[in-house]
């Protein structure tokens, strides 16, 4: 009996090991290609183990790092400002609708929740942003659309409804006003929730390419993800945008086309891929949709 149990456990472990390897291998392929000599790539194709190892692609990119640094700068600025403001707004809205004694709480909940079910869609938002708010080529166009998601408000509300009303009531007895209660009592009590939501919001800022594709044309304001989009869409982007290529310090004739493309992916995507997994449990905690009801 115990023997068959052991055997089944070994089999399950084996299955998971195979799956894990299968899931991780594609990452390794991209890294391997970025480290392979350009000539070897066109001779042998993309391989998991570089036949002739070369750092040429990285040297090309890091010789003139301005574009990459600028893109990191834009992404970090947008992520930091967006996450802080977004988190505060999410917490304020969620707190108010989590208060059972707030007279308009159901109305406000409906007002927020409805935007999850129905939306005007892409075109009206695009026209609003470009024609009426004139935010084309503005960093605000990257910050504003992601700022306040109804889903995050609902998750935050789930956390905040667990704060006992007695705490709030006794603070009121001591003469504290609502703003003071929120900033001095509720926010400190919600630190775990704030950390979770803050991480989710900054993650969505870091990985947002859609708004940049819609609203950013100015080469000085290209965030990381848009840099990646343009490089992926065509290496021709470099050849047609000679200005961009000169900024990179690229001699287009000997440009390591394939390996450099993958090296850009590694440099732009790599750092966060090392940092985010440390916070993996937050991602699951924040997104268990079960908390929608509560």
């Amino acid at each position, binding site marked *: 009996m115990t023997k068959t149990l052991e055997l*089944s*456990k070994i089999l*399950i472990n084996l299955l*998971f*090991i195979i*799956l894990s390897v299968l*899931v991780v291998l*594609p*990452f390794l*392929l991209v890294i391997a290609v970025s480290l392979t000599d350009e000539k070897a790539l066109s001779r*042998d*194709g*993309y391989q998991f183990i570089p036949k002739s190892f070369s750092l040429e692609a990285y040297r090309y990119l890091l010789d003139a790092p301005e574009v990459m640094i600028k893109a990191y700068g834009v992404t970090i600025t947008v992520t930091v400002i967006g996450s802080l403001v977004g988190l505060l707004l999410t917490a*304020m*809205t969620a707190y*108010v609708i989590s208060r059972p004694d*707030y*007279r*308009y709480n*159901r109305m*406000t*909940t*409906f*007002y*927020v*929740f409805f935007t999850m*079910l*129905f939306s*005007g*869609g*892409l*075109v*009206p*938002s*695009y*026209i*609003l942003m470009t*024609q009426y708010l004139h935010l084309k080529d503005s960093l605000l166009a990257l910050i504003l659309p992601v700022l306040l998601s109804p889903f995050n408000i609902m998750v935050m*509300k789930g956390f905040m409804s667990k704060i006992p009303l007695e705490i709030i009531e006794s603070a009121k007895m001591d003469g504290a006003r*609502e703003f003071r209660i929120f900033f001095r009592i509720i926010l400190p009590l919600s630190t775990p929730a704030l950390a979770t939501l803050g991480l989710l919001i900054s*993650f969505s800022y870091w990985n947002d*390419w*859609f708004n940049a594709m*819609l609203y950013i044309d100015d080469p000085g304001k290209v965030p990381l993800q848009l840099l*990646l*989009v343009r490089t*992926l*869409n065509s290496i021709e982007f470099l050849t047609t945008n000679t200005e961009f290529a000169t900024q990179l310090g690229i001699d287009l004739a000997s440009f390591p086309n394939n390996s450099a*493309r*993958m090296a850009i*992916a590694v440099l732009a995507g790599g750092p966060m*891929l090392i940092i985010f997994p440390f916070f*993996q449990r937050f*991602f*699951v905690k924040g997104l*268990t949709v*079960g908390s*929608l*009801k*509560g």
Partner: protein
Amino acid sequence: MLNKVSLAGDTENSRIVPETGQTGPLPSPDMPPKQRKQQSVIRKELRHFRNNRELFLLSLPGILYKLIFAYIPMVGLIIAFKNYRYDLGIFGSKWVGLENFRYLFSTDTAWRITRNTVLYNAGYILVTTVAALLLAILMNEIKQKWSKFYQTALFLPHFLSWVLVGYVAYAFLNHADGLINRTLQAFGMDPVSWYQNAAPWPVILILVHLWKAVGFNTLIYFAGILGINGEYYEAARIDGATKWQMARKITLPLLSPLVIILLILSIGNMFRGDFGLHYFIPNNSGFLYGSTDIIDTYVYRALREIGNVSMSAATGFYQSVVGFVLVLLANGIVRKINPDHSLW
């Protein structure tokens, strides 16, 4: 809390508060009684508002944000019925009735993008849910020390943006040097022009989606299983139940609320395609539109690449309205069957 969200339940709260903020004139004796009653209701509501003023102010930034970025664009849906011109603006452009829709549905585009959106979403939901449930149940059978390691590995693709996944896919599918074609050639087979051959794309897209989403979904279900009371399993073990029986009779039924909630959400989102997946993985290749184009990619192309704003808006309108009806239907059906499982 969402059970309570209903329009009917809000009648008491939704009386209009006059924007002037002034208290109305005192009810004079010569007023008809009905009007007097109305005035006292307004004054009562104003007093309530004053008591709730500070909390209202706290929620005001969020409310204004949603007004500008969610509710005002809903008004913009009227563009679908206009011949939109940038120089004339939304309200200056000419009404054309259903002309945009007639044009949209006269080609086979509407049918193609609708079919693709719905079928792909159904495929993703089915494959990913089944795989994730299976993995979560299996994960529960092994030591935590090991499962932690697998979780991290399976979860890794979740952290990539779709653009980066596009690079990964390109490394495999690249015509001249990609891993798959080189492997095919090594076995003496002909290389395939993946980015020009529409037939294999349903399988490719479902595999890529599975790769990116399975770890995340497995962890959601695994967290659900960990939340199940251990006594059920203890009792079952004493009665001599097998692991398979326990999974079928305890784990699955107790996970069903979570599965159903996620399913309603996905069914409600049936009409919202995954733009990133369908735009970057096929590398926006025109050869593949027949089998990869979905409503979202079409709307984007019509707006940004073709520049046909009205057509884009009409498609978006169609997506918003049908999507909304689907959410209501899905939730309504679930509420009929089991009110506890419905979203509201």
